[in-house]
C-alpha cells in the first residue's frame, strides 16, 4: 500500500510540471488564439539553459531563475519577430510554431548533443521525509509545493487584479479588449512571454525528475495539449485539475498497465470531449 | 387536416422565458403571418419549430406527426423548409451552384461519390426551371457575394423552395430592403403557388396585410391574438402595442 502512496506523490509531482506548462499553453490559446506547438520547445530550452548555467558553477536556484528569465526573453523575441505578423491566420500560426519546433529542437541537439542528461537535485532538497514505511523524496514534495503556489498566484492574478481582468476579457471576447483601448499587442507579448517562462520553469524543475533527451519537447507538448483540452481552453483551474489527473494516470498506469497508459489518457480525453465538448472548465463558446 | 400544429410550446434560456405556451396552426396553402415587437420571441419560435432549438415543453406536429425532437435536416424531407433572417448562403459559389446544392438535398444520388454532378440532367432541368420562373437567368453565374442584398434575399427564399416544401417558414423576408425591393418581394411572395403554405415573420405592415390570410400577434413570448387581418387591425390591444401607447411602431 505504502508504495502506492509514494507513487501518488510522484504522479502529483509530474502533474504539477504539466500544470506549469499547460497553464501557459492554455492562456496563449485562450487569449491569443495561437496553437503554440513550440511550447514544448520552451520546456526543453528551460532545462538545457539551467543545465548550462549549472555547468558554469552557478547553484541550482540561480540557474533556475536565469533559465526562466532567458526563456521568457526568447518568448518575447519570438512573439515580436514572428507570431506578431500572423495574428488572425490560425493555420499559418500552427505551421510557424511547427517550424520553430524543428529549429529549436535541432539547435538543442547541435549545442547540447543527443546524450541523455540530468540536472542534479539541489543539495537543500537532496533528502527524504520518512513517515512510517513511506519514504517521500523532498524534491518531489518541493515540486508539488511550487505547483500549488503557482496555482494560488494564478488564481489571485485572475480574480483579483487588473491584468487578470484583461486576460479574462481576452478569453471571452478578443475584440472587446481592443475596443476598451487596451494595448492588445502588449497583452499578447506579455501573455506569450509569461507562458514561455512558465514552460521554462517547468523544464528546470523537471530536470532532476525527467532529465533531458531528444524528443522530450514533443512528448511534453502532446501531454500538455491533452491537459489543455481536458481542462478547457483558457482555464487555469481546468489545467490544474487536468494536469494532476494525467500525472496520476501516467504514473499509476505505468505500475498497473505499463503498455496502456497512453491509451487510458487518450480514452479519458475522448470521454471528456464527448460529454463536455468544451472541456471540464471551459466556457461554452457559441458559434 | 391541419398542416402544422404548434401545441403549447415553451422555451427559456436559463432564467429568461422567451416563449410561453405558444399555440398556433397552419392550414394547407394558408398564408399565416406572425407579427410582434422586436424581442417578442418570433425567431426563437421558428428555431423551435424547425428543430434548431430543443423545446422545454409542448410539441410540434407536421401533418399529425410529432416533429418536436427531429433535427432540421429530417424536417426538410418531411416537407418543411425555412429561410433565415440574416442571409445564410454560400457566398463563394454562384447562384446556380447554390441552387444545385439546394436541389440535390432530396435526390437519391446525394450520396453518389464519383459521378460528376453536372451529369444529372434532372438537376439541370429543375435548376433552369427555377431560374426561368424567377427571372434570374442573367444573374445565374454570378458569385453570391457579388449579388445585391435584395437579390441575396430572393435567393434565400429560392433555396428553401427548391425542396418543394408543403410549408415554408420565412423569417423576415424583407428585412433590410429598400422600399422598392420590399414591394418586389411582397409581390413575389404573393406569386408563390398555393400548394405551399407559408408561415411568415414580418415587420412591414404593408407586406403583412398584402399577404396574410391570418395573423398571429406575439408579445413577450405569448400569443395575444390570432385572427383575420381585419380582426387584428381593429383589435385594441394590438393597437396599443403596435400603433399607439407610446410603443415603437415597426414600419
Amino acid at each position, binding site marked *: 500500500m505504502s508504495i502506492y502512496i509514494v507513487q501518488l506523490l510522484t504522479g502529483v509531482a509530474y502533474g504539477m510540471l504539466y500544470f506549469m506548462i499547460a497553464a501557459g499553453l492554455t492562456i496563449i490559446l485562450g487569449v491569443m488564439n495561437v496553437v503554440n*506547438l513550440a511550447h514544448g520547445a520552451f520546456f526543453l530550452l528551460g532545462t538545457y539553459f539551467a543545465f548550462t548555467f549549472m555547468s558554469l558553477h552557478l547553484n541550482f536556484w540561480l540557474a533556475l531563475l536565469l533559465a526562466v528569465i532567458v526563456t521568457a526573453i526568447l518568448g518575447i523575441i519570438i512573439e515580436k519577430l514572428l507570431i506578431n505578423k500572423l495574428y488572425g*491566420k490560425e*493555420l499559418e500560426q500552427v505551421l510557424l510554431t511547427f517550424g520553430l519546433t524543428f529549429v529549436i529542437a535541432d539547435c538543442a541537439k547541435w549545442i547540447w548533443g543527443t546524450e541523455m542528461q540530468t540536472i542534479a537535485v539541489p543539495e537543500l532538497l537532496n533528502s527524504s521525509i520518512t513517515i512510517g514505511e513511506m519514504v517521500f523524496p523532498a524534491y518531489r514534495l518541493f515540486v508539488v509545493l511550487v505547483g500549488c503556489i503557482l496555482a494560488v498566484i494564478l488564481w489571485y492574478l485572475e480574480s483579483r487584479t487588473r491584468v487578470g481582468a484583461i486576460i479574462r476579457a481576452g478569453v471571452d471576447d478578443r475584440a472587446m479588449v481592443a475596443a476598451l483601448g487596451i494595448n492588445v499587442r502588449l497583452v499578447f507579448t506579455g501573455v506569450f512571454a509569461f507562458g514561455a517562462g512558465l514552460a521554462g520553469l517547468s523544464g528546470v524543475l523537471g530536470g532532476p525528475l525527467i532529465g533531458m533527451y531528444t524528443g522530450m519537447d514533443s512528448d511534453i507538448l502532446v501531454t500538455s495539449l491533452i491537459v489543455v483540452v481536458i481542462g478547457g*481552453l483558457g482555464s487555469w483551474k481546468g489545467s490544474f485539475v487536468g494536469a494532476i489527473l494525467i500525472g496520476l494516470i501516467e504514473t499509476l498506469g505505468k505500475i498497473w498497465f505499463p503498455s496502456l497508459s497512453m491509451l487510458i489518457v487518450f480514452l479519458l480525453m475522448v470521454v471528456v470531449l464527448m460529454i463536455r465538448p468544451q472541456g471540464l472548465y471551459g466556457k461554452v463558446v457559441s458559434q | 387536416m391541419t398542416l402544422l400544429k404548434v401545441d403549447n410550446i415553451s422555451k427559456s434560456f436559463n432564467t429568461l422565458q422567451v416563449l410561453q405556451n405558444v399555440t398556433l396552426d397552419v392550414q394547407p396553402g394558408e398564408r399565416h403571418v406572425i407579427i410582434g415587437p422586436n424581442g417578442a420571441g418570433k425567431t426563437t419560435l421558428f428555431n423551435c419549430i424547425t428543430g434548431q432549438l430543443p423545446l422545454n415543453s409542448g410539441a410540434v406536429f407536421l401533418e399529425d406527426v410529432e416533429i418536436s425532437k427531429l*433535427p432540421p435536416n429530417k424536417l426538410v424531407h418531411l416537407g418543411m423548409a425555412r429561410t433565415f433572417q440574416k442571409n445564410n448562403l*454560400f457566398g463563394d459559389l454562384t447562384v446556380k451552384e447554390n441552387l444545385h*446544392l439546394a436541389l440535390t438535398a432530396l435526390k437519391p444520388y446525394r450520396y453518389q461519390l464519383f459521378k460528376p454532378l453536372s451529369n444529372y440532367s434532372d438537376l439541370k432541368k429543375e435548376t433552369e426551371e427555377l431560374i426561368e420562373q424567377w427571372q434570374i437567368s442573367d444573374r445565374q453565374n454570378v458569385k453570391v457575394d457579388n449579388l445585391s442584398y435584395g437579390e441575396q434575399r430572393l435567393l434565400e427564399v429560392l433555396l428553401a423552395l427548391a425542396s418543394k416544401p408543403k410549408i415554408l417558414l420565412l423569417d423576415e423576408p424583407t428585412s433590410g430592403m429598400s422600399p422598392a425591393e420590399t414591394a418586389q418581394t411582397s409581390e413575389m411572395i404573393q406569386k408563390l403557388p398555393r400548394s405551399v403554405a407559408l408561415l411568415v415573420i414580418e415587420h412591414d405592415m404593408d407586406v403583412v396585410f398584402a399577404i396574410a390570410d391570418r395573423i398571429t400577434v406575439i408579445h413577450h413570448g405569448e400569443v395575444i391574438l390570432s385572427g383575420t387581418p381585419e380582426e387584428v387591425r381593429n383589435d385594441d390591444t394590438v393597437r396599443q402595442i403596435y400603433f399607439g401607447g407610446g410603443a415603437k411602431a415597426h414600419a
Partner: protein
Amino acid sequence: MKNNLFIILILIISVSGLPFLLSGFGVDLATEIYIMAIFAMSLGLLMGFAGMVSLGHAAFFAIGAYTVAILGQFINNVYILILSAIIIAGLIALLTGSLFIRTSNFYFLMITLAFGQLLYALAWQLENWTGGADGMRVSATLDFGFGEIASPLAIYYLMGIAFIFVYILLKLFVNSPAGRIIKGIMENPSRMAALGYEVRVYKLLVYSLAGALAGFAGSLYGYFNMFVSPDLTYWKFSGEVMIMVIFGGVGTLIGPVLGAGLFIILQNFISSYTERWQLILGAILVLLVLVGKGGIIHWFGYFKEKFIIRKGTKNVETSKPIEEEREVIT
C-alpha cells in the same frame, strides 16, 4: 472539364517521361514523391474540401504500412495486402471518426493529434507484433501474378500509375454530388442541415475516405521502403504532410502534390549537404509562412495577375487566386 483533362495529360506525360531525365537516385526520389503525393492529397481532401484540419493523419498512413508489414508475414499476396490496408485504415477512420467529427476546429486538431500519438505509443509497446522502436522489415513481395516487381524503374511506374489513379479518383469525387455537398458543408454547415443534409454522415464519409486513401499510400510505402517504424505515425510526420498540403495550396488537389514534391526534394537536398537539415528546413518553413501567398498553386495565379493581367488581356476576376483559408479556431 477540358482543364482537368489537360492536367491529367500533363501528369501522364511527366510520369512516363521523367525516368529518361533522372538518375537512379532521382527515380527513387520521384517514386517516394508519388507515394507522398497520394498521402498529401488525402489530407488535402480533408483540409481543403471539408475544412477538417487533422494533425494525426499519419496514423492511417502507418496503419496501411504496418498492415502490409504484419499481415505480409503470413500472406504474400499483393492484392489482399493492399486491399486489407485500405479497408482496415478506412474502417478505423470510420470508427474513430464517428467520435472525432463531433468536435471541431481546435478540438478536432487535438483529438486527431492524440490519436496519432496513441498509435505511436502502441507501435512502440506492442513489440511482439510491431518490432517496437526498432520497427520491422517488410517481407511481402510486389508480385501481381506476373513475376516480382523489383527493379526501381518498375516500382517507379507502379507508384506513378497509382498516383495518377488516385488523382483522377479524387478529381471525380470533388465534382460528384457528395463532393460538392461536402464543400458546401465546409462553407456553411448549419445551412446545409437546414437544406436537408445529414452533415455528420458527410463528414464521416470524407474522413473515412481520406483515411482509406492514406492507408493505401501507407501500404505502397511499405512495399517501397521495405521497412516500417513507429515514426510513420509520429505527430511530426503528420505535421510534415500538413506542410505539404498548405504549401502546395489548400483547396486544390494538385497543390498538395506540388507541396509533396517540393518538400521531399528540399529535404533530400538539404540533408545531403548537412546533418542540420531539420534546422534549415524548419527555418525555411518559418520564412515561407511569413512571405507565402497561400501555397505554390496560388503563386501561379499571383504571377499571372502581376505580369499577364497588367497587359490588360485578361479579366482579373477569373485569374484571381482562390483563397481557401479556413479557420482552425473560432
